[in-house]
């Protein structure tokens, strides 16, 4: 049972990264424009995050060093500091977007004023994180996020076209007959791939492994947790793509609202299905908001060598506590300023893309270093696979911003 509950770290990490506000809407948009053709990008991104989650978990267990300690050591102070600033800006903006998304879902659930819900839910979330110990945070939000499976049930009930889905496993272009369909295809492929590898996933996962006091004997579990959590997140992402392909593509709808994506999931079901979809989205958005706020605290303290940890009493890790509480309050101020949650997501994607190579490169370097890792060093195959994904990540990072400009953020 304890091992089973250990998986919740992987589930919370993956759900927070895979099916956060931006990803829910973005993946459905990809399905609405290209049908099943983006399936390969989800598979590729899932493999990539499993490889790197396992690697950073292994480093955390063997060396006891989380991601930002490694970033500083391998990139040096200046580049490391730039990576820290960009990563925490990304965390802040993403956290603000998730808080905005939570208010939207609560508004759809209760009909109460959105601004009031934003303030109350953000403060409540902060109190929950402050009170709960790390393992209860991951268990609560990891397990409640599983309600999102309703999206997969919904997609299955709408009978996907499996033959077209099988074709989607190959990266073949095609889709709308617009003048920019090639760049649009590339934009969605890069966006889906990169979003599955968002840096805060590895920040949170490696810190979580240390919070949970994993030992080398838990390394088998590390792989299982990374793989199972990511596969669950991936299945839900595929379900979102399928719903986009089944509901929106034939009706020429380009979903631009969170409520539209929830409506799609509720189509084959009665009101109970709609409520479950709303609760599932609420749980994953809350998980993502916590993940990004805590990552902000983890990153800062790990970079400057300050004490950190959610398992420690707040008075013992003051800077850590002040940082994540500050992140959440700043995110609340941004969300309350009236900026649309989905606009914030678009901005966070830019930061995410830029930061990706600077996060994954140091992880690969340490994992392949025999002097540091000893007998737990990467196998040759593991290093080759990591290197291949790093190349893809770098290519995606370079291509992302020009593609975003050319396609007007993916407008078909």
């Amino acid at each position, binding site marked *: 049972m304890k091992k089973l509950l250990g998986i919740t770290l992987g589930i919370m990490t993956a759900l927070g990264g895979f099916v956060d506000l931006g990803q829910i809407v973005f993946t459905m948009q990809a399905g609405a424009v290209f049908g099943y053709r983006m399936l390969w990008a989800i598979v590729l991104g899932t493999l990539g995050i499993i490889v790197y989650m396992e690697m950073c978990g292994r480093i955390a267990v063997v060396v006891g060093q989380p991601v930002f300690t490694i970033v500083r050591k391998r990139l040096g102070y200046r580049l490391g500091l730039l990576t820290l600033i960009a990563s925490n800006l990304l965390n802040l903006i993403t956290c603000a977007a998730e808080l905005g998304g939570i208010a939207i879902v609560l508004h759809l659930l*209760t009909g109460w004023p959105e601004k009031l819900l934003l303030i109350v839910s953000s403060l409540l979330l902060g109190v929950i994180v402050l009170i709960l110990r790390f393992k209860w945070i991951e268990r609560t939000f990891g397990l409640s996020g599983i309600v999102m499976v309703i999206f997969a049930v919904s997609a299955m009930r709408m009978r996907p076209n499996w033959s077209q889905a099988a074709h989607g496993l190959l990266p073949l272009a095609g889709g709308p007959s617009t*003048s920019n369909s090639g760049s649009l295809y590339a934009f969605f492929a890069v966006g889906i791939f990169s979003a599955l590898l968002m840096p805060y996933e590895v920040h949170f996962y490696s810190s979580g492994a240390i919070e949970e006091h994993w030992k080398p004997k838990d390394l088998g579990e590390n792989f299982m947790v990374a793989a199972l959590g990511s596969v669950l997140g991936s299945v839900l992402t595929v379900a979102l793509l399928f719903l986009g392909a089944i509901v929106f593509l034939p*009706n020429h709808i*380009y*979903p631009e*609202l969170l409520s*539209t994506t929830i409506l799609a999931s509720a189509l084959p079901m009665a009101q109970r299905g709609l409520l479950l979809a709303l609760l599932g989205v609420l749980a994953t958005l809350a998980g993502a908001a916590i993940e990004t706020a805590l990552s902000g605290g983890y990153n800062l303290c790990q970079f400057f060598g300050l004490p950190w940890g959610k398992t420690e009493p707040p008075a013992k890790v003051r800077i850590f506590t002040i940082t994540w509480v500050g992140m959440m309050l700043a995110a609340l101020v941004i969300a309350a300023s009236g900026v649309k949650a989905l606009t914030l997501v678009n901005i966070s994607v830019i930061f995410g893309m830029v930061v990706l190579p600077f996060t994954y490169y140091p992880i690969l370097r340490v994992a392949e270093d025999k002097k540091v890792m000893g007998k737990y060093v990467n196998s040759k195959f593991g290093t080759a696979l990591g290197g291949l994904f790093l190349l893809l990540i770098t290519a995606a990072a370079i291509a992302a911003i020009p593609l975003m400009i050319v396609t*007007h953020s993916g407008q078909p």
Partner: protein
Amino acid sequence: MYDKRTIRIVILFSMTMGILGCQQQSMSRRKARAQIKSTLSLSSETRIFIRQIHNGRLTESFIAGHTEYLKHLQSDLLSEMSKPAADEVADALTVAQKQLLALRDVFPNSTIGESEFRADESRLDDIDSNLNNILPRP
């Protein structure tokens, strides 16, 4: 009379302006097409939405909330369409704005009876047909 360098600069400048001019024109058409397609998308979404309400599959608070968000989206689109446009698409955009306003009448209540549902569907058919008629080619 003019040296070669001056002539080259004038030719290069004219070519650049020509390219920019063409781009500007095609951008306007592309933007208008995108806006009309967004209106069509909104209309299709409204159709699915009212069908779900008619079948009693949505909660009251979801209906109220989603209607509110759709109205925001409609207002954003309307203000985008109100910006100055190239002559070749100005008429089409005027028609599109009228359809967008007509869509407002279709925005639903928390319950929709059979006759109201049929009337709404027929209105949406008209809106879709009018929008498809003015959609500029890619």
